[in-house]
């Protein structure tokens, strides 16, 4: 099993969900996250007052899938998230040792 974590631009969420639905993936965890880093925040001026946006709003998508389809999932996310511009985001892939469904105690692929 692989855990796939993607940090992407907020407006790409629907496209990514749709792309994943196409290959039969519906379950995922989505969080609104704040990005601080290379793509620094910036200032806006309104009537002489400065408003600093010190973080960049991003969406984090997490899902655990069978290793066999991990590459396909990553590719789908990449295709959907790609605008060809800076700040399109990143995808991380982790190996998952075990998954357990709390209610039934099922393990492995059955639990995801």
């Amino acid at each position: 099993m692989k855990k796939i974590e993607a940090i992407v631009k907020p407006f790409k969420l629907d496209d990514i969900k749709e792309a994943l639905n196409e290959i039969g993936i519906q379950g995922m965890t989505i969080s609104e996250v704040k990005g601080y880093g290379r793509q620094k925040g910036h200032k806006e001026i309104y009537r002489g007052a400065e408003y600093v946006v010190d973080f960049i709003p991003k969406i984090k998508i997490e899902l655990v899938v069978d290793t066999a389809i991990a590459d396909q999932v990553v590719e789908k996310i990449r295709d959907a998230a790609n605008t060809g511009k800076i700040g399109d985001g990143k995808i991380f892939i982790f190996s998952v040792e075990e998954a357990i469904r709390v209610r039934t105690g099922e393990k492995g692929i059955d639990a995801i």
Partner: protein
Amino acid sequence: MDHPFNHISDTLKQRREQLISALSEMQPIDFMHRHAGILDDYFRESFEHSLVGPKLALYKNPYAMIALGGYGREEQCVHSDVDILFLFQNEVPKAAEALIQEIIYPLWDLGLEVGYATRTLKECIRLARKNPIVLTPILDARFICGMSILFSNLLDTLRQKVLKKQSRKIITWLVDQSRERHLRFGDSTYLLEPNLKEGQGGLRDYHTMLWIGRIKLNIRHPRDLEYFGYMSHEEYQSIRKGLSFIWNVRNRLHLTSKRKSDQLYFENQIQLAKSMHFKKRSGQQAVETFLGKLHANMDFMKQQFLMFLSEHGYVKTYSKKNRYRLSVHVEGLTVNRDMLDFVSSEYVLNSPALLVRVFEESTRLKIPLSMEAKRIVSEFRHLIDNEVRTDKQVLKGLETILKEPVFTIDVLGEMLDSGCLVSLIPEMKGIVNRIQYDEYHVYPVDKHSLRTVQTVRAFGTDQDNSGCPICGNVWKELKNRKCLLWAALLHDIGKGAPEKNHAKTGAKITRKIMAGFGYSEYDIEMASFLVEQHLLLMKTATRRDIHDEETAIMCARIIKKVSRLQMLFLLTVADAVSTGQNAWSEWTMALLRDLFLKVMNILKKGELASRHAVQTIEKKQDTILASAATPDERSRLAATFNIMSPRYVLTMPVINILEDIALYQNMNDREFVWHISKNEAANTRIVRICAKDKPGLFSKIAGMLTLNNLDILDAQIFTWRNNIALDIFTLKPPLDKVFENERWTIAERNLTSALSGDLDLASQLEKKMKVASAIKPRASKRPHKVNVDNKSSSFFTIIEIFTYDFPGLLFAITDALYQAGLDIWVAKISTNIDQVVDVFYVRDVDGQKVDAENQVLFIKEVIYQRLPKII
């Protein structure tokens, strides 16, 4: 031998199962009575047949079994607790334990939740005096079996020794408890998943009224509340109806969750709606109708409860220190104990406008209506007719109510609860208690609308809970606030209609309502625009790339005016804040505020979104699309038109746009394509290059041109939204006109290898410049000037360079920008004899403006370095 109790508990089990299986055919109150009755029978039977009982010597130490709490009130739901007290006259005998084993254990075996206590009369009184939690179930005590005199003793002693002496203290405790409970369960989670017992307007509110009645007047039956004048006959009937509904839900909830449970979780809601035969109607799901009805009932109960408390003086009275100021301005109204009253109901009959103006006075004086005044409003609200609606005084009053920031009392809420608001604006009927079934909309639509009004007028005050300080500043600048407040009240009014697009429908209804009140076309247009577009900013901020200039331009074109943007922004924030915690966060705020500021900037500058700009662009689009020979071509043209940058379309004549489209469609996989045209009259060459954009593209083209001795007179570059760059150069023709075509072929080859990295332009140019030694220091009075402007655009840092022309200048500057890590998005280069003005719109490699002070200094520094020294 079978213990007789096996038989008794078997009977109980059977009878309960039978009763529960008939639940859906019975009135909830009958079910609960019969359920309590079955339990009573069990206790009586077991008292009769007890093997322990005879050893307890009833005549020496009398005892009784007494039902407490809900069981005492005979309000026994499917899985309610069974609370029972074994009361002894003198002492609790040792054998009591055996009695419990005999009587209670079988009940536990049946899976009933039984709470029992064995106490003497004395103990009971002592505990009740010490702890109101022990006291309240005893208030509901009901004799089941044993020595009945003991029960009477209990009630009498309780009254003499506890209730009479401490009634004020106990009631205060009850009121405090209720307040705490309302606060805790008023939280949004409980609005989505209501708690039938502890929630606002839940059963506990009814219990508390009953307990207060018992303490003060020793009432036995709930109906006594009406007979003692605690509530009107109609109110009592409505309460019973409401209770019946809540009990019905509770019973079914117990049944489906197979245990005692008071909180109506999401997972139960759909199923319960179905089992209670709610149907889908006029675009509302069954579960939404169900929750709407539950909400209406609980809301009514809450109102009655609060009214009950305040009529008995248990609600904090308002500060009296300003009393001298309280004089009523409207005839027919009066102030009584810091509350507003009608002088008499006759006044209302003669002048129904008072029904609205009483709320205006309430807003002005910041005091609530008395209970009696509320009753009058509610009972006479049918008098509000068209004459009242078109009364200018009424409208003025309504505006005051909308505009005045009063936070101590909820005047609009009172207007809604009394039915006055709906009588005044009948179109609101459709959204009253309308529930939206999701985890997002916490409040019914009517309550949400009122909260939105409240949020708007809180901007910039200490009640502002948007967490967004800019809102207060924007609010202060607004001139026409009433339109925003009307839009806040009506923004979701379309949700009451079956049509899908509630914003659009709402705009139509708003237009009608505003026209009915006699507003000017300007105000009507403003309010209905706000209602129609109230989702625009939020949708755009969360679903579009707000770092794309086109996104802001699109919004600016729809919004058109700064004042409309300001109001739309405030409405959007207020709408989100008033929806629930899932709709508003620092994260959402960052996106929305960013978009607002960017659109504001575009609207203020005007060049890209002015009416003239919009018209120009539309006209060009029409001409271009009209040039298509086939529908296929037309849609290809339309698609290409959509990816062009607005600046490009605005500046470029149609004929050139068509040339560029042709060029673009010929690109295929190539890095770039170009087209060279000769202007013999002006003796210039125009080169149009269409290329895949990449950092340094512009400087490489400029370098290539210099390398080939092609002097740049003028240049414009644009970046389309799909990362295609359009670079247009006006050049002096090559010196050697005979071999001009060969020159172009070499130049094209140079650019190809420069782009692929095979040709190092910088070193080639350096060699060339050494030979020519062209960069000579200049004698001039005016120095070079480099301006870095971060204010004019939200998307780009604009660099302006004023200098003197020399061969290779453009390459030098653009190369410096490239080396400094900047990406050029737009450029305008113009040469006037030897004066040069270059303007570049740049962003850094991360797509951000470069606005840090040290960055700005650095940019200036690297550009100055490449310019010739001034002597």
